[in-house]
């Protein structure tokens, strides 16, 4: 509990900064929407002029930019998943590694706590921070929809688009939490985690663009929260949710197993 509260306190500033910046960008984007939508026909022409790959990568072959959800998916959603993913990855990678990097681990482990208690405090703090991040983004984005969008849209689908990134962020944080066992230098942990997020993002784009490499998409967490999918199905795919959560749970479970047996030297 002490560790959890401490992590909340130390992570407070960075979660607020990340969430407010991304929420603010969403507000700006939705503020632009009415002028786009007013001239829907010209917009379609514009999209037609985009390279085919671009349209495909953003799912514009499956939906129209004039639709508010599709507009948000193309302009705002990808930032929430991508930049939020980077935030989640950094958070997951550093929360444990920093104790060894800053040599505070001997202090911490000399206290009457088990290693599992340390891990649990950290994991809960990551989950709480990511929940707070997504809640702030969700509330602000909903308000900007209410404020700027006059056309009809499905509120349920919007909520799905706001909930899906949370799952993705949890998965990335869990994967990086696990990876940080092997890169305890904080800077290295940062590079690895940002590399993982950006790398798997482009992996998904490549899979969308290249029919022969479609299978590659399964390796990318981004595939499972694809906005065009969510909008066209108006639901989250149960299998996809299962895959994300399982990957995260396996990563966290493996971290518990390995950390419990690890030699900690600074």
């Amino acid at each position, binding site marked *: 509990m002490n560790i959890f509260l*401490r992590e909340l306190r130390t992570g407070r500033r960075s979660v607020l900064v990340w969430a407010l910046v991304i929420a603010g960008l969403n507000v700006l984007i939705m503020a632009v929407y009415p002028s786009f939508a007013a001239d829907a026909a010209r917009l379609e022409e514009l999209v037609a002029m985009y390279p085919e790959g671009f349209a495909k990568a953003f799912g514009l072959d499956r939906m129209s930019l004039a639709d508010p959800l599709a507009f948000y998916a193309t302009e705002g959603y990808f930032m929430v998943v991508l930049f939020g993913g980077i935030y989640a990855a950094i958070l997951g990678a550093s929360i444990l590694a920093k104790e060894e990097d800053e040599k*505070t681990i*001997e202090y911490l482990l*000399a*206290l*009457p706590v*088990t290693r599992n208690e340390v891990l649990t405090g950290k994991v809960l703090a990551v989950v709480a921070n990511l929940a707070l991040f997504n809640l702030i983004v969700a509330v602000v984005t909903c308000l900007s929809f209410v404020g700027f969008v006059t056309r009809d849209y499905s509120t349920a689908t919007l909520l799905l688009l706001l909930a899906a990134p949370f799952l993705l962020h949890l998965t990335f944080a869990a994967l990086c939490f696990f990876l940080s066992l092997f890169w305890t230098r904080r800077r290295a942990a940062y590079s690895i985690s940002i590399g993982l997020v950006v790398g798997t993002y482009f992996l998904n784009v490549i899979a969308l663009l290249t029919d022969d490499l479609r299978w590659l998409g399964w390796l990318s967490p981004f595939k499972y929260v694809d906005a065009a999918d969510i909008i066209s199905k108006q639901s989250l795919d149960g299998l996809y949710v299962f895959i994300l959560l399982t990957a995260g749970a396996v990563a966290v479970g493996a971290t518990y197993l390995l950390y419990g047996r690890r030699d900690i*030297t*600074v």
Partner: protein
Amino acid sequence: MAVPSVPAATPGAAVPAIETVHLKKYYGRSRGIEDISLRVEQGEIFGFIGPNGAGKSTTIRTLLNFIFPTAGSARVLGHDIVTESREIREKVGYLPGETGYYDELTVDQLVDYTARFYSTDCRRRGAELVDILEIDRKKPIHSLSLGNKRKVGIVLALMHRPRLLILDEPTAGLDPLMQTRLFDVLREENERGTTIFFSSHVLSEVQKLCHRVAIIKEGLILKVEEVERLRESRLRKVRITFRDERQAVVDLPGAVEQERDGRSVRLLYGGDINDLVRHLAGRELESLWVEEPTLEEVFLHYYEAGGRTGEGSASGRAAAVSTARSGKEER
């Protein structure tokens, strides 16, 4: 009616504060410690001395379960170091050799945070220690000097009134005045019944405080000795330059490892210093140095002198441990 007889709990039968049995730790292929069998009784101040890299910190880190033993086992206050580590850490205060604390916290905040982990309320004792060691309580940790950080570490190690204190090179970075004050605090803790186990590479420092010392080198215990006995057999390093080369010889029973170089003689002297002075009295000297030998030289003496100090095998070392202990119990 016969009452089943339970052996009375004598002080000698109390659970040892630390007991290690053939403890061994390898980091991959590099040696941490080879074979450490030690028994530290409750109430003792026990010094653990050896040069850097001898395995002092490895032993301590194993006791606190930061690292896992490769072979052997150990108990601290009766608890197994691997399976009951949490119980151990509730009762043990630890001062790391080199550590970081949460930099952005002030001294007060760190003490307060640490106190929350213990089941007993230890904030008052924490504040008291902060005063005794003269630490500025409002300062953030990152602005403290190395010596002051060390003092904070001492507060954190002592504040929950541990039954056993494990200190890794506690005096490193402390000025002599603070060192004295630390020793006063430690003696006071010890009088209250706290067992103290501390490592150092400075023999004279250990001698000031400890009841017994263990000498460790290359992952092995060379010797466990009572400080009183070390003191009796205290070696001195003597260097004499004579006026006349023909007189340059010291022929005394306490003189070991004599080395001649022209008019100069170097020797380790273990006898009464007065005998040496009388022995030299009739001769013309150019100069005379008498100094305390370095730890390394004491080690070498124990290595090479043979007899009661020359154990080379594991069983010999174990015997040395038990002799030292029984010697204590007889008193």
